């Protein structure tokens, strides 16, 4: 569904991605794990069109070299690191903006209700300016907003960041639910343990390079991964 070939990204003098290649299959949860600064966010930003890169990204047999808004139109939804909610708009306005490209009033309304049932906290805060939400609440909003665009593939950048343990569980449950709705998910996570437990396949990204790939189970059982990312002591 999504194929990336030999991707290079530079920030000025910093070579952030050094020839990354990967592919995402339809309907799977693919997770990318890697430590701080490995280049995970950079990868997602390249896919959604915010960065200039060398190499190619192919989506549904088309080369992606459009502006971000066109890419969204093609059904790719990116829930970014740092959430980027519209601080001065209310929670509900944020959610509705998520559905900006859609025209089916009824579908939008249904999806809104769906999001509110997934995240009841958002319903309570419907009319609050989203800039004043707590960190975790903003994270929920960003996820909810992403869902509102009813995408084919979702790029999630550390969705559990800053969430309370109870909610982390919920978020991962939601991700599984979303997949059940027939969507494809590319998940970037620090919480490798959780991510691997719900993912089908995984890649490990280190210093801009893919150093390992395989089924989530294999990766989770790999001893060096266990040590480095799962916090299992020697």
């Amino acid at each position, binding site marked *: 569904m999504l194929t990336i070939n030999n991707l290079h990204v530079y*920030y000025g003098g*910093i070579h952030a991605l050094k020839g990354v290649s990967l592919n995402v299959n339809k309907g799977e949860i693919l997770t990318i*794990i890697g*430590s*701080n*600064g490995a280049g995970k966010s950079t990868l997602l930003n390249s896919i959604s069109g915010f960065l200039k890169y060398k190499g190619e990204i192919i989506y549904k047999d088309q080369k992606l070299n459009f502006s971000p808004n066109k890419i969204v139109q093609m059904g790719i939804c990116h829930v970014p690191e*740092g959430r980027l909610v519209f601080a001065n708009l209310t929670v509900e306005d944020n959610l509705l903006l998520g559905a900006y490209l859609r025209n089916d009033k009824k579908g939008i309304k249904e999806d809104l209700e769906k999001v509110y049932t997934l995240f009841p*906290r958002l319903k309570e805060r419907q009319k*609050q300016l989203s800039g*004043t*939400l*707590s*960190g*975790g*609440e903003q*994270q*929920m909003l960003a996820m909810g907003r992403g869902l509102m665009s009813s995408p084919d593939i979702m790029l999630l950048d*550390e969705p559990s*960041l*800053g*969430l*309370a*343990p*109870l*909610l*982390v*569980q919920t978020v991962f449950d939601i991700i599984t639910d979303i997949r059940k709705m027939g969507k494809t998910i590319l998940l970037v996570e*620090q*919480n*490798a*343990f959780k991510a691997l437990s719900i993912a089908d396949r995984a890649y490990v990204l280190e210093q801009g390079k893919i150093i390992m790939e395989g089924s989530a189970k294999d990766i989770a059982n790999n001893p060096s991964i266990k*040590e*480095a*990312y*799962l*916090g299992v002591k020697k």
Partner: protein
Amino acid sequence: MNLLEMKNVTKRFGGLTAVSSVDFEIEKGSITGLIGPNGAGKTTIFNLITGVYKVTEGKITFDGKDITNKEPYMIADMGITRTFQNIRLFKKLSVYENVLTACQYNANYSLFEAMLYLPRCRKQEKQLKEQAENLLEIMGLIDRKDFIANNLPYGLQRRLEIARALSLNPKLLLLDEPAAGMNPDETAQLMNLISDIRKKFDLSILIIDHHMDLVMGICEKIMVLNFGCKLAEGTPIEIQSNPKVIEAYLGVEG
């Protein structure tokens, strides 16, 4: 002896009560945890302590002095510093400059002496530079000294924030989700770092975090907040087994 005391502290935003009548103490030299569901009011408490928000009701004392509603810089001067949930570095300055700037607290030469570059200014500047390098050394940032802060990986940015906070020789350090965005291994390193600096700088520390391994691992005492109210308080063991906390926050499996 209590370093910080909050008495009956309430904060309202319009109709919303973010923190409601919280009583809370931090013992000198301790590492205390502050946990609770998202939106419980944890960051708000930090903002109240550091003077970023004004207290609606109640009183906060630090080291026996009333600090309620003082300006943030005064509170910093008195010895409370913090890091932010959404990192706030001097983004375009280098790592070294970030720390050196905060070291300003330790020099007292005047504007006039600065403009004429008089001996006192020279001497103190030299000390500041030494102090800054020293701190970077301790925090393991010395080899990235000339990096622009914004270009550092996330984890190091958090470290830098801690380094900056330490430059003021604080008595109390408030850390707002220092482990956010870190993987378990990095979190473990952070835990070591926190215990290290507590010893080296003779600090008391208050931590907000959602990583239970971290909080349970290093805190001596934990307070749990829910909907702005205190839900529970106690040692990690007590908290972990408290059914109210499990229901509201930890979940069955944790």
